[in-house]
Each structure stands twice: as structure tokens, then as C-alpha cells.
């Protein structure tokens, strides 16, 4: 490929990345991106879960009935019997020690407001406080 073309191609790729990055500046999209990265392999891209193995997040009654417990579930993981929409699940969800309090907040707000969910949003301060219950706040 001629050199000029190569440079052009490089520039085009860089712009494409720039555009992509531009999409992720607001908080809702930060939550979506983090969900994709940390949660979607298990809960599915559309939050549908997987049969009786992984509980759903889309339309999950658990999100409203256990709203205050969710920050610690994300931080510490979950195992043992849980009932979501009247179905019993009993597997292991791994902890996420690498997420900051503000990242957990963004993911939770994404869950509460995606796929038709209409849960109440969290503030970072509220999430940090709730994380105190499991010693899981990193203050960031």
C-alpha cells in the first residue's frame, strides 16, 4: 500500500476509535460499557440470564425488592439459594473487587434503567454507604 494511503487509513481508524470513545463519555454509557465487560457473559447482553442457571436482570423483581443489597452483591458476589421472579437459582456469582464505588453506581443505574426496568437511581454517596455494610467501599 502506498505510504500516503497507509497514513490515511491510520487516520481513519483513529477517528473511528475517537468516535467510539466519544459515545462512552456519559454515565449511562459508562454503565453499559462496564456491564458489557463484567456481567454480560453470564447475565446476557439483554439481561435475560440463562435458563435456571443464571438469574435475569431484565424484569427482575429482585432489583427492587433487594435494592439496598445490590451494591454488596456486585462487590462480594453471591452464592446460595436466591429466588428471582419466583424461580430458584443456586450458583455462584463471583466478586468484583476491581470496580470502584462510582463504577458500581454506574452499573447499577444502568440495570435499574435498561430493558424496560424502571428502578430508582443511586447516587455514588448512597452506594458507598451501602457498601459499608460489607466493608466493600473503596471511597472512589
Amino acid at each position, binding site marked *: 500500500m502506498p505510504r500516503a494511503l497507509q497514513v490515511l487509513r491510520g487516520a481513519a481508524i483513529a477517528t473511528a476509535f475517537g468516535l467510539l470513545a466519544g459515545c462512552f463519555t456519559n454515565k449511562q454509557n459508562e454503565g453499559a460499557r462496564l456491564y458489557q465487560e463484567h456481567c*454480560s*457473559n453470564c447475565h*446476557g447482553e439483554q439481561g435475560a440470564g*440463562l*435458563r*435456571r*442457571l443464571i438469574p435475569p436482570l431484565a424484569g427482575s423483581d429482585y432489583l427492587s425488592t433487594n435494592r439496598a443489597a445490590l451494591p454488596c452483591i456486585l462487590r462480594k458476589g453471591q452464592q446460595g439459594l436466591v429466588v428471582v421472579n419466583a424461580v430458584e437459582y443456586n*450458583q455462584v456469582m*463471583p466478586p468484583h473487587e476491581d470496580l470502584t464505588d462510582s463504577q458500581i453506581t454506574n452499573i447499577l443505574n444502568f440495570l435499574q434503567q435498561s430493558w424496560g426496568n424502571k428502578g430508582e437511581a443511586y447516587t455514588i454517596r448512597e452506594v458507598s454507604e451501602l457498601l459499608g455494610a460489607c466493608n466493600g467501599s473503596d471511597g472512589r
Partner: protein
Amino acid sequence: MIHPFFRRVLLALSGTLLLASCSDNKQQATTLPYIGEHDVRARTDGGPADTIYATIPRFTLTNQEGKTVTDSTLAGKVYVTDFFFATCPSICPKMQSEMLRVYEKYKNNPRVAFLSHTIDPAHDSIPVLRDYAERLGVTNASQWQFVTAPHDTIFALARAYMTGAEADKKAAGGFAHNGTFALVDGQRHVRGLYDGMNPQEVDRLLREMPLLLAEESAKQSKP
């Protein structure tokens, strides 16, 4: 870092591509390649040399119902394999949901089987495997078998099916493995490798399975 097992799979995959691209003969396009090393042996009767294709070693496994599964249980069937563990924190749910797509398509077809091997036999006892299968909605244990065996047997099979799997304390859940699906013919030859994490690759598996089934039918109708 490329995991050595991944490298093997990549090599095998690129080998297939190369093979596919040098053949312009129509027959080739509808026949799946034999994956793995080939060996050519002269025949004692002086006839054309035989090609010996890589073959999965004979095996004895136990399924989610506690029943024994061997290579002869699967002889003559087309089957798809993967490697997983029940507490896998990373790729397994996605991989198994892709496998479910293939299972749904061939459900109750007696010529097709599925074999999911646990790479954590210490934890995944028969009751754990049964519970896992049921939760996944797999009711026909003779078609989709979730199998266990001593650790070394499983890891040797993973190598034979060209799937990366090994114990690794640093990896999430204690095991490093990849989501390779191997498509195997009725004579224990691997005929296709697919990335089970990639829906397009699994679509390719769905397109290629009928070719292998047709080949098996042709073989079986021969006198």
C-alpha cells in the same frame, strides 16, 4: 500473551483455511477437513498408501446420571464437545448458551450428540453435573452428556479435541480454558473447530454439521 493451547488451535484453524484455499475441486468444498496431523502409511498389499488421520483416543467417562459413556457409545454419531466447569466465573455461561442453540436445533436427533467435559472433577460431582444440566434445561441425558473422569483423562482429551484447558491458580476460578467447540465424526476424527464464544463461529458450526451428517449417511449406506 497467547496461551500455548490457543496457539495450537490457531495453527489448526489456519491449516484448515490453507487447505480449503488450495483446493479448487468441488468435492472438497462440501467435505469438511480432517484436523490434526496426518500420517501416510504404505500398504503391505502394494495398493495406494493409506492416510491415517488424527484420532481421539478411546475413552471412558461418567455422565450426569452416573452412567458410563465410552467412545463406542458415540461411534457412528456426529458429536460436539466443549470443556467447562460448574462454577466457572468467566466464559462458560455464554459458551453453554451458544451450545444450547446447537442442541435445540438437533434435539432428539439420535445421530447427533453433545459432550461437555468438566475440567474441575474435584468439585463437579455427578449430582452437581445433574443439577447443572437440569438448570440448563437439558432433560435428555443420553443426548447431551455432562461428563467427568479423573483429572488427567479430561486434560488429555482436551488436548485431543484441541481445546485449551489447564489448572491455573492465577486464572479466574482456578482454570484457564477457552471456549472451543470441536465437531467430531463417527470415527473419532475432529472435523471442525469453532470459537464457542463467537455467535458467527457457532453459525458456521450449524452450517457445517449437515455436511458431516450427509457424509456419515453415505458411509453407513455403503455395503
